[in-house]
């Protein structure tokens, strides 16, 4: 259960690395906001994923 929740959080961070770019394309976000969100998504993924990704 705990692992599933963590997985969910990891994938949210992973989504944060790609979805903002589509919002830039749709002219909803600007480039700077995109860069910040992608960085947060990157850090979040690398901090959370090692706990459940064994190999």
């Amino acid at each position, binding site marked *: 259960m705990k692992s599933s929740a963590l997985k969910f959080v990891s994938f949210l961070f*992973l989504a944060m*690395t790609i979805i*903002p*770019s589509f919002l*830039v394309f749709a002219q909803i976000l600007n480039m700077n906001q*995109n860069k910040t969100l992608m*960085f947060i998504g990157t850090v979040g*993924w690398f901090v959370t994923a090692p706990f459940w990704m064994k190999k």
Partner: protein
Amino acid sequence: MALFSRKSLVTKLDAVNEFEREPVPEGKLKGWKSFVGTYAGEHTAGTEFVLGPLFVAHGVTASDLLWGLLIGNFLAVLSWAYLTAKISVKKRVTLYYQLEKIGGKNFALGYNLVNAGLFCFLAGSMIAVSATAVGIPFDLPMPTLNDIYPNSVGWVLTVMVVGAITTVVAMFGFDQVARFANLAAPWMIMIFIAAAVAVLPELGVTSLSDFWPVAETKIWNGVPLEGQSKFTFWHITFFAWFCNMAMHIGMADMSLLRYAKKWQYGFASSAGMILGHYIAWVASGILYALFLHQSANSTEFAPGPVAYNAVGIAGALCVIIAGWTTANPTLYRAGLAVQAINAKWKTWKVTLVVGLVTTVAAMFPALVMKLLEFVALYGLILMPAGAVIFADVYLLPKLGLQEEYAERAGLRFNTAAAATWVLTLLICLWLNLSFGIEIFFVGLPGWFIAVVLYVVASRLVQKRAV
């Protein structure tokens, strides 16, 4: 620190030795999912940041690129499935062991050494790619497309630092690197796609219908950059097919696919082709086109700053990690291959020497700028070994000749296999020099030549023995 634990290295070495000299047992076979994951991860790497932009630099048109990649990658997947996977499942041993059975210990050793040398250059190019991102905070002068030699002291120092770190980690921490590479793989492909999508508006694409006209005029406009040759549909098709020639037609992936329950798992390679050799190449080409657009066709060629300008720190990190996670296992494998000369040599010492050679090579930007040619040459040089295995497995028994002749005859060196390798490469060189057949294409006739040569040479060698 676990990263520098000797124990992990020993454990890894033990793992590498698993079933090295025996067929993989039934209980150790793996399902298709693990092959999909492995191929997707292995083929989304640091090289993708260089190859996609080089297609742009070589002036390919948009339609030639997209169709060429589609057909070339399709042919690559067929090669993996029908050649490599079929033989892997039939034999279930590593490429090295199969080569030893056919060509003898000394032949396999020669293959290992050549492979190690090629691995060094590949790892070197990836260290250089990482260095372009590491150098961003220091405002490092970046190499240009036509550079051959190091262009500044700063460049040399940056490469030395990245090379030293890569070497030390390869010496002591392969397990952690492999784990980190798996962790980075899904993130990396996200960054590739995200970066390309985010910069499209800057190229003038604000709706899907804008994409094609912009692709044809601003991204892959068909005009090569100064000093670069012109690429056509055929260059792209053959490059996409043969860039991993060593792995499929050359049979290096026997070591991986011998674990497949069915030969059809060879089709799992399509995951790597779609993500790495289609989406990532297209994406990195788009990023480079934006750079060219903004810099008035500057000849500077540095994946780090290109990715950083597009998506900030995440982009620069992606270049560093992609380069590093490709360079590291490659360096480690090169060390193991060299160590095969003398098992008494300490792996870490061999890796240290290999790392030094690799780092020196990485200082020369030509390694990155000529990556297309190098990758093609890499596949070509190792291809005859795969042709020898193919002929040995399928043709020799049908022609009344003995397969795995070195093992059966107790030879340490099978002249037929060695002559096939050397003569094939000499004929390919002759085709290149005399008829102008470019290195990207010569592998195709080369494979047929190698098969015929091996059959003829085997008949001569085995007849003489009788």
